[in-house]
């Protein structure tokens, strides 16, 4: 149970802080905020080249409307995904997006293949590298789509493009659920029951359903762990 490769002494902690946590935060803060500023680049282009500007009332109206839809997720998603993504994983995932269909599965698979123990620093490093690999492929993919996308879609049969459009995410979600349910099958019914009840039966908003599913299952895990029903692997 005690893992010799897990460093817990003070010197190792200091090294980890100095060579990982601090640089990770520095890189994360700077890149996220630069990206926030650059988000408005196309609008600046419209203003300079075409003299298009938006009046402040329309801008505020649009902002209010979109925050009403997505505002809760700005907070709920980082908080809910943090225990899985870790520090660098969070910065990477919330800059590059596609968290559920790309970052989480790629982080999990990297850990699975290398064989790290969940919740350890090794797992965080290896999982982060899995995310890095996924971001590189992602950027290549969207850039290729920008260049040859329209042509390629026109020559592919519709059944293939429809299959990718409609079924990739469901198939991946099912597969990752299966992968983790294998590790601790007793959590699976709860993880399905909580969202099925809160979303399907009660129709609660998604920004309540996500944290309820994550932290509800974690709470069940805590009870099982305390009672010794679930043993760490």
């Amino acid at each position, binding site marked *: 149970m005690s893992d010799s490769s897990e460093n817990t002494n003070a010197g190792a902690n200091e090294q980890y802080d100095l060579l990982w946590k601090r640089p990770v935060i520095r890189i994360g803060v700077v890149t996220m905020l630069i990206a926030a500023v650059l988000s408005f680049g*196309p609008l600046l282009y419209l203003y300079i*080249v075409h003299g298009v500007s938006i009046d402040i009332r329309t801008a505020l109206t649009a902002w209010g409307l979109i925050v009403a839809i997505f505002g809760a997720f700005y907070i709920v998603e980082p908080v809910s995904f943090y225990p899985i993504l870790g520090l*660098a994983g969070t910065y990477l995932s919330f800059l590059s997006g596609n968290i559920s269909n790309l970052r989480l599965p790629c982080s999990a698979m990297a850990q699975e293949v290398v064989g790290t123990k969940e919740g350890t620093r090794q797992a965080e490093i290896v999982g982060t590298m899995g995310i890095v*690999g996924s971001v590189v492929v992602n*950027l290549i993919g969207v850039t290729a789509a920008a260049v040859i996308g329209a042509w390629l879609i026109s020559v592919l049969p519709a059944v293939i493009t429809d299959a990718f459009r409609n079924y*990739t995410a469901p*198939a991946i979600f099912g597969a990752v*659920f299966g992968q983790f349910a294998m590790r601790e099958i007793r959590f699976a019914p709860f993880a*399905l029951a909580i969202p099925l009840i809160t979303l399907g039966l009660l129709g609660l908003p998604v920004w309540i359903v996500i944290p309820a*599913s994550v932290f509800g299952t974690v709470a069940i895990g805590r009870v099982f762990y305390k009672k010794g029903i679930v043993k760490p692997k």
Partner: protein
Amino acid sequence: MEDYLAIANEWGLWIAGGLMVAVALIQVLLYYRQLFVAAKTVDVTNEQLKQAFRTGAVTAIGPVLAIFVIMVGLMSVIGGPMAWMRLSVIGAAPTELTAAHVGADAAGVPFGGEGYDVQAMAVSWWTMAINGVGWLVLVGLFGHTLEKGREKLGGGDTAWLGVLSTAAMIGVFGYLNTTNILRLGGPLIAAITGGIAMVLLLQLAKKFPPIKEYTLGIAMIIGMVFAVLLG
């Protein structure tokens, strides 16, 4: 209609969008470099790092092909440069389309329809930008404070932290599957067959370890094929 899309595809916008894509690329390169430095402090070898990178990349191929298909659709309504830029950062296609629609609503015209001119398009773009900025700024400013929350939740018990991670992951994917369970039909078939395939493939990978890196990609294709055949 033709009018605003002509402007949306001007080459200057490829540059404006490219700057954003460049930041995502720079961030990932900086973390890539830092990972090799940090790995030494926790006894992760360079070979393991490369294996992790390769696994992440291989696993990403399937989902990225889906993004590829979706992006081409998005290009036809918001133009190439914006589709490229928006799908390189936070906010998947449905989120961006919602924002584009909301922007058109705020401008008082139907998205892509009668009266949707450059002015209205600018409001759509503003809405997509300000929405993405919500995540970027909050994570940028407060992301590091979440570590304290995790430490508190974990309480320094590494065995419990492992159980916690598993529980959190099953919890997230329980939720993600729920939408498809409630939709029934093809998505549900894809989820169930994808799940069963993954479990079997991981069992198989115990006997043939080389296939492990490809298990999720193969499971995804199996789920998709069953959904197409039976959905």
